[in-house]
């Protein structure tokens, strides 16, 4: 994240408050996450311009930023240290005094300096929305389960993290996002908390390919079973099923196992289908006897065809 807020908004250091507002609005309309769903780049860019705007649109913060640059957040400490040095000769406020210079800045001033103007007509501020990713394997997306998430809160010097426990619903898709209301940043002045958006990254399964609620897999079939028919065991996501193979089954034959696919998101008890494609494995390393039998088979088939 660039430390030069003026550069982030594409403005000279002499920009007026109106120019800052206009530049922010213009860039926000381009990069706001609401207008660029699922775009990580836009989200990052918006965070940059938002932070720049929060600081530069507030005269007090801007003054500190102009004076101290990227260390502007510590301006209070610098100022306080100066004041303490100067006031040691006088009585001083002592350890119980206000950390904001003898109470010159009340709570509301502090919040407005932290959060900028926003909807300036309103006293309440909604907390910041948090975004996080949760990586799952296919089994994790198959079953509804609870999982603990580490959520990064804040950025820069104020960065920290918190743990929350969420329910991962069965059937979530790769790159699907869910919103967890109220788990974002705390609201200000009685405003509501922000929300937490969790994006699931579902890793592919080594055996199954998933298309929505349906699963696809390839099952090897030996030549005698393909020719003469028989029974095979197939492993589905949660069990093993016995499949009857019809005689003279062709390579790439597809069979559907109804209800053996993936759970349908938020529709309990409903599942997609599992499609099994047979891959007939031709034998290799034939013994002399096997070769003899194949020759015999070929001659029978040639005679029949003649």
């Amino acid at each position, binding site marked *: 994240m660039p430390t030069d807020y003026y550069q982030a908004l594409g403005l000279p250091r002499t920009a007026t408050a109106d120019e800052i507002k206009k530049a922010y609005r213009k860039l*926000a309309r381009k990069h706001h996450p609401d207008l660029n769903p699922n775009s990580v780049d836009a989200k990052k860019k918006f965070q940059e311009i938002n932070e720049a705007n929060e600081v530069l649109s507030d005269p007090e913060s801007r003054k500190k930023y102009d004076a101290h640059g990227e260390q502007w957040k510590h301006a209070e400490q610098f100022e306080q240290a100066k004041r303490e040095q100067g006031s040691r000769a006088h009585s001083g406020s002592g350890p119980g005094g206000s950390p904001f210079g003898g109470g010159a800045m009340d709570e509301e001033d502090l919040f407005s300096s932290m959060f900028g103007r926003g909807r300036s007509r309103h006293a309440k501020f*909604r907390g910041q929305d948090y975004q996080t990713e949760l990586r799952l394997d296919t089994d994790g997306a198959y079953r509804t389960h609870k999982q603990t998430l580490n959520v990064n809160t804040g950025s820069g010097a104020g960065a920290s993290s918190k743990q929350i426990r969420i329910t991962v619903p069965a059937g979530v*898709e*790769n790159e699907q996002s869910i919103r967890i*209301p109220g788990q974002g940043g705390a609201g200000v002045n009685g405003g509501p908390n922000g929300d937490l958006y969790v994006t699931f990254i579902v890793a592919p399964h080594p055996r199954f390919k998933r*298309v929505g609620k349906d699963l696809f897999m390839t099952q090897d079939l030996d030549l005698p079973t393909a020719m003469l028919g028989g029974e095979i065991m197939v492993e589905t996501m949660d069990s093993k099923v016995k499949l009857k193979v019809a005689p003279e089954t062709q390579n790439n034959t597809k069979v559907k196992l109804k209800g053996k696919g993936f759970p349908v998101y938020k529709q309990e008890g409903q599942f997609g289908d599992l499609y099994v494609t047979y891959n007939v494995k031709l034998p290799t390393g034939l013994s002399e006897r096997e070769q003899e039998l194949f020759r015999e088979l070929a001659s029978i088939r040639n005679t029949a065809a003649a």
Partner: protein
Amino acid sequence: MTTAQRITVEVFATHQGVDITFVHALHERGLIRITVLQEQHFLEPDELARIEQLARMHYDLDINLEGIEAICHLLDRMDVAQREAQVLRERLGLYEVEE
């Protein structure tokens, strides 16, 4: 759904710091649903996130209602296109041979 599970337009507007007329204007344009029960106007809980999103567009980004309406249509189309692309990517994966 009972009224206890719904939120009134007035409460939502006060809580979010938006004008009540803005919420009604969204409803008039067909962008959100408002249910009237016993002469009170209620919002649907599953639409609150969307209404908050539209409020951000209006109040934070200074986009007027006509602009919001156009953006909503485009976002809906984008959502459909993204879902289609996702399904097509998954289908394409069926034909990819792993090395």
